[in-house]
């Protein structure tokens, strides 16, 4: 009910799922929020619709007849810039990670609540619609990150981070609330030839945590998504452009 401002032009959501019940449920939920909804029951049909209708966001089920959700994701990413949310079943970790690495932006595990799906959709749209560069600072708890000055303060005290530590933290913070796979971190911070070097990433994350997390407490800023990657918690006021 407390939806963000009703957009001037309805936002187009493409739902690709082979299950009739899920498609119907998502259509009624999304239409009730004034989204413009297109439905596809196969990957092939989904790709066609994506080309015809250029949706603002795609919700893609991974288990599809015909071409798989993974393949659909890959082919969609060849030309499509908008966010993609993956729907996966429990325990299909490998597929989930592969999809995220192929360029999907987030995932939800079935069954999920409508509230969660809507929140993810809003978060992703916000990120892609609002220019990224306007976010110059992120605050979460006692932590402040200034992207322009490349400085980090914890409880008001400046913390010295190495270039790599800052880049890791910055990438996570800019994707606050969203999982970032190890592969994505390695590729963007170290470079594409380092994507398999998860051990290096672990060491740097461990140093980073040591500097920014409170001693004797559990990590609150750099959270592990087991088997997938890392996540920065949803920032207190993500729209705060400083």
């Amino acid at each position, binding site marked *: 009910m407390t939806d963000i401002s009703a957009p001037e032009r309805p936002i187009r959501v493409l739902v690709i799922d082979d299950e009739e019940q899920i498609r119907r449920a998502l259509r009624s939920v999304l239409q009730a929020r004034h989204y413009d909804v297109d439905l596809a029951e196969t990957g092939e049909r989904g790709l066609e619709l994506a080309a015809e209708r250029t949706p603002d966001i795609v919700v893609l089920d991974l288990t599809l007849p015909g071409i798989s959700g993974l393949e659909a994701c890959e082919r969609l990413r060849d030309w499509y810039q908008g966010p993609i949310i993956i729907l996966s079943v429990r*325990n299909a970790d490998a597929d989930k990670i592969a999809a995220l690495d192929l360029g999907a932006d987030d995932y939800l595990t079935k*069954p999920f609540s409508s509230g969660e799906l809507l929140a993810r959709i809003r978060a992703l749209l916000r990120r892609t619609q609002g220019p990224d560069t306007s976010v110059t600072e992120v605050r979460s708890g006692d932590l402040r990150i200034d992207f322009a000055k490349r400085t980090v303060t914890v409880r008001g005290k400046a913390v010295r981070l190495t270039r790599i530590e800052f880049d890791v933290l910055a990438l996570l913070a800019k994707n606050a609330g969203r999982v970032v796979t190890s592969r994505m971190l390695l590729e963007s911070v170290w470079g594409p030839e380092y994507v398999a070097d998860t051990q290096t990433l672990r060491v740097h994350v461990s140093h980073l*945590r040591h500097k920014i997390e409170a001693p*004797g*407490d*559990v990590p609150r800023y750099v*959270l592990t998504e087991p088997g997938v990657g890392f996540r920065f918690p949803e920032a207190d006021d993500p729209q705060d452009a400083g």
Partner: protein
Amino acid sequence: MALKRMMMSWGGYPFAVLLVALVSLALIPFRAVLASTTVMLFYVPVIVGTARLAGVRTSATAAVISFLALDLLFIPPYYHLTVAGLPEWLALIIFLVVALIAGQQTGTLRQREQAAVRRQSELELLNSLSARIVSEKSAATTAEFMVAEVVGVLGARRAALYMWSSNSSTPECLAQAGSSRQAPGEAALVGWVLREGKAIGMDAAWSVPADQRPISVGAADAIPGVVADGVYVPLQTVESLEGVLVAIPPDETGMTVDDERLLAAVANLGALSLHRHRLEDEAARAQALQESDRLKSTLVSSVSHELKTPLAAATARVTGLVEEGSDVDAARVHEELLNVAEDLDRLNASIGALLDLSRLESDAWRPHPESCDMRDVLGTVLSRLPAAQQSRVYFQIADSIPDVMVDFAQVARAITILVENALSYSPGDEPVTVGVAPLADEIELWVEDRGPGIEDTEKERVFEKFYRGAASATAPGGTGLGLAIAREIVRSHRGRLRVEDVMPHGARFVVTFPADAGRSE
């Protein structure tokens, strides 16, 4: 012992001859002064002694040699068989008769004594065997004992006990003693006995009453062409053939009647014992099967209850709204929908828990251990709790904790269960404390609440599937599977999960992982 064995070699005959010769030589110097009847008296102990040590036949021989020695050496004319007068003849004949009778009597006494000793050791064997039958825990130890005794008491070169292997196709050696080398044709003969239920090689046992011994055939009658010297006794009870006892005699002379009778008795007792063990095993298996059937049906009824209750509730609410038509008050619809969402949440939790548990139990969810910082795991656990609950969780984390090799996702799941449990059993906004500390070669992690605690009688049961403790009424909504899942996860990491009391009230769930947990993977 060595001296006695030497004397008794060659049936004791050289010994008897030697003894007579010695006595004769000792008496020759005195033959002029000693009356021949007196000399005769010196030979009597020799004959009796020979009878005692070597038996009747040897003593008879000694008597005859003594008779000749007396005649030749002590009765004039010396060195001639002829005897001068009738009295000497008479004395010699009487001597021979007395000597033979004395030898005979002493020898018989010796045989009886030997038989008594033997019977005693047989009795001891049978006695200890029957005692074992009552006390032995398994067929294997009974079999070990039997073959050891057959070797020890009968002096068999080799003893072995066979039964059908579990797939009933080949004989399987349950125990053996003495030589570990199989006798010629042993395997084939054992197989024949197991199939036919007849003994092989018990030829000497004809004097044993037919109802106390098995039907016996020669080895060559059983399997043409086989030459074997062993005795193969079926272990036969009224109902079944339990196995075969094999005894290979020490030499070609084979087994005596007594040996075979003893063997038959051992076989009978052994059969009873093995039969009893088999019946016990079968009973235990049947009971285990019954128990697992009972558990399965409990599980099925619990599972269907767990799944149907929230489904029934949601269905009732939704169909209720449908029934009321389109003019239902929006506030009421909203309220009902909130309830339906709650029902569905519970259904989802139950299905998820059941899936996890079945994957864990079927070993489909194997841990993939990696080096993990427990603080990191706890951070993930905390971030998954509802925001409102996060502030109730306090941490007590030791300064330095070594990394543990565990499956991050599984351990996070187990700890999440413990923390969620603690939160729901603690009243209101009471805190829940989570701690981590290194022990000598373990990492200990605990989750402590200020709830009602857990009765001693329930401390184990709370980990059972679908078991709900006395306090669960205050914390509805659980699936009854959480702790079972947590324990299963901890177990698959070679760790332990237990619960203890917190004073004045509350429960503390303690997880310990070996510091190198999972390294063996």
